[in-house]
């Protein structure tokens, strides 16, 4: 069985976001990490490798430095890695990104494609379902658990909703978007890190993408366009008091609640 995991290198938003003086994001000043949902998806793929001897390929689209997340994935146990990088791919929205990844996947063999539910930088959760549409694959989003029946060529996935879950069966090949709950990612091993740097990362450019029109790539191929981006405007600070006693605190709060007609 062949599994392809789509991963993205993202700035670590937990450490706060840094901006350049012109208001654009200072990606250079932030730590770059493998997107957490993607890492959970990779872990799920590696478990299928442990269980069924699946071959795991990781693919990413990005700047040349995104190779770092591919090396990390191989150090965790992925077998092969593909970096899709080309100037004409820059500035892509989710339509153009998913068209690009679909173009790369058309050159690969797969039974299962796994993406993360969403990337922590864009927060859209759109690329996975859009890739599936471009490739004509069934999609199961928000996967919490994956079981593969290799013989019957199908997969059963626990698919999460707000107040319930569905056990969903799909035919292979199919695409699954992974929730972080899918599995605690394993660590890289020292041997794995050595091996990961010995292994080759396949680099593909525009010419290696199959059956994709130029008009669907990069900034030019993006239906959505950014009108404005800015650091969030913080609400003005209200009152803050440090009372000497609980009684005083309560008096203050009851006063405000009464004034505002809450009580």
């Amino acid at each position, binding site marked *: 069985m062949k599994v392809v995991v789509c991963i993205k290198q993202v700035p670590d938003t937990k450490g706060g976001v840094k901006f350049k003086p012109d208001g654009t994001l200072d990606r250079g000043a932030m730590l770059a990490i493998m997107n957490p949902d993607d890492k959970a998806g990779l872990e799920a793929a590696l478990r299928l490798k442990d269980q069924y001897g699946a071959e795991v390929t990781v693919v990413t689209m990005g700047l040349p430095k995104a190779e770092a997340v591919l090396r990390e994935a191989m150090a965790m146990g992925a077998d092969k890695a593909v970096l899709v990088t080309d100037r004409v791919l820059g500035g892509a929205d989710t339509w153009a990104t998913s068209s690009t990844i679909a173009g790369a996947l058309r050159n690969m063999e797969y039974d299962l494609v796994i993406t993360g539910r969403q990337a922590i930088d864009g927060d859209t959760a759109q690329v996975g379902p859009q890739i599936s549409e471009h490739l004509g694959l069934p*999609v199961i989003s928000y996967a919490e658990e994956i079981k593969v029946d290799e013989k019957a060529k199908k997969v059963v996935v626990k698919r999460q909703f707000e107040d319930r879950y569905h056990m969903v069966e799909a035919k292979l090949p199919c695409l699954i978007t992974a929730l972080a709950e899918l599995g605690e990612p394993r660590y890289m091993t020292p041997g794995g890190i050595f091996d990961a740097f010995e292994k080759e990362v396949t680099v593909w450019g525009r010419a290696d993408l199959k059956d994709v029109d130029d008009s669907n790539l990069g900034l030019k191929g993006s239906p959505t366009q950014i009108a404005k981006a800015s650091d969030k405007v913080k609400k003005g*600070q209200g009152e803050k008091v440090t009372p000497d006693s609980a009684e005083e605190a309560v008096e203050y*709060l009851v006063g405000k609640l009464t004034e505002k007609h809450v009580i």
Partner: protein
Amino acid sequence: MPRENIEQYKGVFIFAQQVDNELSGIALELLGKAKDLANDLDEKKVTAVLLGENVGSLVDTLAEYGADRVIVVDDPALKDYRTEPYTHALASVINEFKPEILLVGATAIGRDLGPRVSSRVHTGLTADCTQLDIGDFPLNAVEGQEQKHKQLLMTRPAFGGNTIATIACPDFRPQMATVRPGVMQKITPVKGAKAEVVEFNPGFEENDCYTKILEIVKAVSEVEDIQEAKILVSGGRGVGSAENFKILDDLAKALHGTVSCSRAVVDSGWKPKDLQVGQTGKTVRPKVYFAIGISGAIQHVAGMEESDLIIAINKDENAPIFDVADYGVVGDLNKIVPALTKKIEEALAAKG
């Protein structure tokens, strides 16, 4: 390649999500917003697209909340949500009725359906919007670039809530957005309002993209919907333990409010995920939000900053929650909250 004849696309449409033949709150919120947008576009009508099996009884509710027309696709293939038949139905409605704007709730269903549909009809989709306006693109005229008017300007947080971006889709139609639940306002329902009903069924053919639902397990939960609450008493890591949440429960009870919490509380297993406010939880905008023992990380604030009145109680005077609180008290929640509850009970009892 920009779409040709985009001027043929007219009207504001919303996807009226239903589950178990009950309309989701987001459907009504979207109708409220769609009415505003339709007014700004000088459009008269708002159209709701209702997909499901035997869902005709929901049409009147949609009408009461502002739908002028309801397009119904009623078919057994749409009984429970599955990506493929729902995509087929919604994409077919788009191709037939050509909406200018289509709003979808950013729920676990909408965030699966939206991108699949937008790729099928080849248009742009902006995710998880918190503000929608009609305006010019580019915002200010740029020499050598046509400034288009009456475009949908879609504003959304990104980068974990640290940035806000406004996005347009000038050359493709429909302009599609998924909208975060809990942000837009429902209208006051107009009793007895009726909508024009258009039945439309594109026909469904089983193919390899059709998944099969083997089992549906509903979470057994008696928790209240925190998005509907007028008063939320929200606790964070500072509450200390699951047992200690009792003092928050008591305060909520005194105020006829509901308890909610931060992610740290869910991660510690003190409260269920349904009660979580924030980026990865729910967005709420109650009349009053008590943030008790909540430090106020950006991921939390993103889910509650639209509350009308925010009251913070925290022992750390430097906690970022004080930056968004209208009234902040630095002090020990274990002493303040029980005393506050008692005082409120007395005050309310005195009022009768």
